[in-house]
């Protein structure tokens, strides 16, 4: 990387931050982990990771006043990268446990896979799966193969998103990543996808 970038990982008390921290460190990025709204709102590059329940995540984010800080950062068009639950939180709402409002950056809903639509395969969808993307999608430039690591029971519905997206197939086609203006999001875990994932994170940092 030609210039040292500074990234802030938003820590709202859920999920595995250590691996993402390690991945960014490996890429020579100056990485901070914080739950402080003042630090989050000032950051130019934010990562919103997360594993766990949508409802609990939104409760935590609100409790720590992180939502306001993320809205401020988004108004300033800071780059925000959501991973897994982080991607889902960008959406309008989820029906996990009960109907819960998300950050609403995109107007897409988050829904659980139903046994019927995925031909009675196991839920959650766990493992390495193929990601299909358009040739112009810069996030996926220079990859060895198209396999990324997924672990999720819910996914964001594709609805109106159409450019700079990727899809994957688990019985049905679903949205596995998108880029919308300053927002980047992947349903899979780049920090868990071996070399491919590191390459994708590097591509993201190049775009910032």
């Amino acid at each position, binding site marked *: 990387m030609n210039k040292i970038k500074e990234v802030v990982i938003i820590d709202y008390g*859920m*999920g*595995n931050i*250590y*691996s993402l921290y*390690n*991945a960014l460190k*490996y890429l020579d990025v100056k990485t901070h982990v914080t739950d402080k709204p003042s630090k989050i709102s000032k950051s130019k590059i934010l990562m919103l990771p997360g*594993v*766990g*329940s949508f409802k*609990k995540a939104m409760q935590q984010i609100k409790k720590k006043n992180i939502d306001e800080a993320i809205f401020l950062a988004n108004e300033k068009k800071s780059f925000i990268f959501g991973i897994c*639950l982080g991607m889902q939180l960008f959406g309008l709402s989820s029906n996990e*446990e009960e109907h819960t409002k998300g950050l609403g950056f995109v107007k897409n809903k988050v829904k659980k896979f139903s046994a019927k639509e995925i031909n009675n395969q196991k839920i*959650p*969808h*766990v*493992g*390495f*799966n*193929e990601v299909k993307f358009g040739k112009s999608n810069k996030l996926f430039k220079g990859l060895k193969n198209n*396999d990324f*690591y997924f*672990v*999720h*029971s819910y996914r964001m519905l594709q609805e109106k998103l159409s450019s700079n997206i990727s899809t994957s*197939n*688990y019985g049905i086609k679903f949205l596995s990543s998108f880029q919308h203006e300053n927002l980047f999001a992947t349903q899979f*875990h780049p*920090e*868990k*996808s*071996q*070399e491919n*994932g*590191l390459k994708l994170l590097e591509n993201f940092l190049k775009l910032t």
Partner: protein
Amino acid sequence: MLKKRLIFTLLYQDENFYLSRNFKLQKVGNLQWLKKNYNFSLIAKSIDELIILNVSRNKNDIKKFTDTIKKVIENCFIPVSVGGKITHLDVAKKYIDAGADKLVVNSNLFDLSLIDKIAKTYGEQSLIGSLD
């Protein structure tokens, strides 16, 4: 379509790693030995997942165990599952904070209130039930 996964399992007890031979634990070495002989940052390019299980009966070594996890999985960009002595939600939290993506529950699998708490906090996908 999902790909097949090659998952590697490490057994840990009191700062050493063990192999299970004929249902007996055989010591193979400590963290340095593991790093030297396996070099996980490289091996992670050929295996898809890692499971680390604490099989120790010593109650006080959770801190040592989580420190070891952190060291083992540094620069190891694959999914990691951790198990052993998950008796309370705080143990689960310690493992997750040390870098675990998933929790392997064996003895406490039928402690349904614990299982429910873990599922509600870290999601249903974070739980692996294990029987042996």
